[in-house]
């Protein structure tokens, strides 16, 4: 396992170094000042968010025993989006303590709040059924979306709605405060360690409820714990990036090609892969700014959706053929 961790870290490091050479103005090894800008504003946050989404994706897919499960299933992204929009409402502009918060803190609170609500609604006498989680998640997601649209049609002239676009499409926020980024990094770091510790139990869940119980594993407890940790990790990532699609969905699948279905290995490989893929997508987004006909910074969520969508379709078609 340690060797796998070393190899995965090595691959990510190589990708990160290559991506450090890609800039919006020049391609090649940059001067120190630009290097540190690329590292702290792009490569490290992208790696952090990518790894968070990928490890959360592995957990969701294992717990819900659904290969289509992604980290936004429990309404994390819609909660963050709605909270970020509510933050901008004129009503709250005059409330001192709310004004003192940042939209990212609001997004984090929204993501955690909605996820907690979904988990409470799903749990019946301490039992969480995967199908109920998917259904309740979908309903809460659509309610949040409807409330967002309702508010948007009432306050459609809201100032500075550019930030809302970020929370709809997803991007590496280069205007988030360092305090917010450190806070998210801490949350993701702790969450990742806990998910790695939990990963052997995720293998047992795959066997089914009866088999797991016969092995002495309290499957409901593992399920609840896994969902809470994975949702917390996703919320921490969404707070500084918005919902970046497909990373949490496709990285676990790609990782399975390399290391099979063992969740212990999968957690490590998918994490490195998520970090690498999002760092590359971010480098591509920066590189495209220099392309004359584009001439704008493309949100990273657009790139992951354009590249991830067809890739996932290929994956599905291949799966159907088999």
């Amino acid at each position: 396992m340690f060797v796998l961790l070393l190899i995965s870290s090595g691959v990510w490091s190589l990708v990160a170094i290559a991506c450090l050479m890609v800039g919006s103005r020049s391609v090649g090894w940059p001067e120190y000042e630009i290097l540190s800008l690329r590292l702290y504003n792009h490569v490290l946050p992208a790696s952090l968010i990518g790894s968070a989404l990928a490890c959360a994706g592995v957990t969701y897919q294992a717990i819900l025993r659904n290969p289509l499960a992604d980290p936004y299933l429990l309404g994390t992204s819609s909660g963050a989006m709605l909270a970020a929009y509510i933050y901008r409402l004129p009503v709250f502009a005059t409330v001192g303590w709310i004004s003192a918060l940042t939209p990212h803190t609001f997004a984090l609170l929204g993501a955690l709040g909605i996820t907690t609500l979904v988990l409470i609604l799903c749990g019946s006498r301490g039992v969480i059924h995967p199908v109920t989680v998917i259904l309740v998640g979908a309903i809460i997601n659509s309610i949040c979306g409807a409330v967002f649209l309702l508010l948007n049609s009432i306050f459609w002239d809201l100032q500075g709605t550019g930030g809302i676009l970020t929370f709809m499409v997803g991007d590496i926020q280069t205007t988030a405060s360092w305090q917010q980024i450190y806070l998210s990094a801490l949350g993701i770091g702790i969450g990742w360690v806990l998910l790695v510790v939990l990963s052997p139990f995720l293998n047992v869940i795959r066997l089914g409820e009866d088999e797991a119980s016969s092995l002495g594993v309290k499957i409901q407890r593992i399920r609840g714990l896994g969902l809470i940790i994975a949702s917390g990790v996703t919320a921490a990532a969404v707070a500084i990036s918005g919902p970046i699609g497909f990373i949490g969905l496709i990285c676990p699948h790609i990782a399975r090609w390399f290391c099979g279905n063992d969740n212990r290995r999968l957690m490590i490989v998918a994490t490195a892969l998520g970090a690498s893929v999002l760092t590359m997508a971010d480098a591509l987004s920066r590189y495209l700014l220099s392309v004359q006909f584009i001439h704008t910074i493309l949100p990273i969520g657009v790139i992951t959706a354009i590249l991830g969508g067809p890739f996932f379709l290929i994956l599905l078609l291949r799966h159907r053929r088999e």
Partner: protein
Amino acid sequence: MGQRNFVFLILLLITTIGCDNNEVHKPQSRPDGIVSLSPAATDLLVHLGLYDRIVGVSSYEANASLKSRLPVVGDYQRIDWETLVVIRPRYLIVQGRSDRMPPGLSERCQSLGIQLIDIQIDRLDDILMMLVRLAQALGVEQTGLNAARKVQIQMDTVIPSGKIPALILLNESGKFSAGKQTFLDDLLTRAGGENVITTSGYPTLDREFLATLAPQIVFVLLPGADDKTVDQARQMVDQIRFSGQSKKTRIRVIRRPDVLLPSCTNAIQLFREMSDEIREKGLQK
């Protein structure tokens, strides 16, 4: 195995992009340079005669010649800090409420030694106020006062011939309009019109509500619209049976790309277009 190789090949291809040592674009640097992330602010800078000091613009810049000539540094949510490091401007202008600015924006500007100036334009008077404030911040106070006076004079040349009820629609389906206490309402009032929408802001309307209004002129503002959209807008207004309509309501579609931009140039231009239309309607009466 073949698919694994395919994934490795893609990874290799993307990483080799980073090894291409090729300088893409060399932006100009000026010690007193200004980067404007707000198209309205760029227009104010042009009115202050500071065109040459602008060294970077936003992705949404309305001034086509500046956008093609200067590096684009994103918008206030997504800033390309790398370009800012290369340009090294002294000032960065953003538009929005100062208490709602992303916190990382001021943090990073401070670390790069860039002075952040935020402007907020909601009403017509804000344009003149911001012109003076911006001039003060950039050390050209007198130029600002002169420019504001000049803009004021250009908007006072036409004396309104009486209050003509008018409606401002902001899309071809007539769903969005400009109400009271907006930059567009201020322009209409100054040009001699009276907004038939009495609520403030930009309310959403339906056909039933539209039929209860009695405007004599309908301004449809469609930035950059094509002929088909303009026809749609005309048909939409023609189909509405406005209350107490004795004569045909005049329709004026304005489709300049910057028609909704709260800038000096657009304010002057739109004021003229509105006052011409109102004067003609007044003469018909």
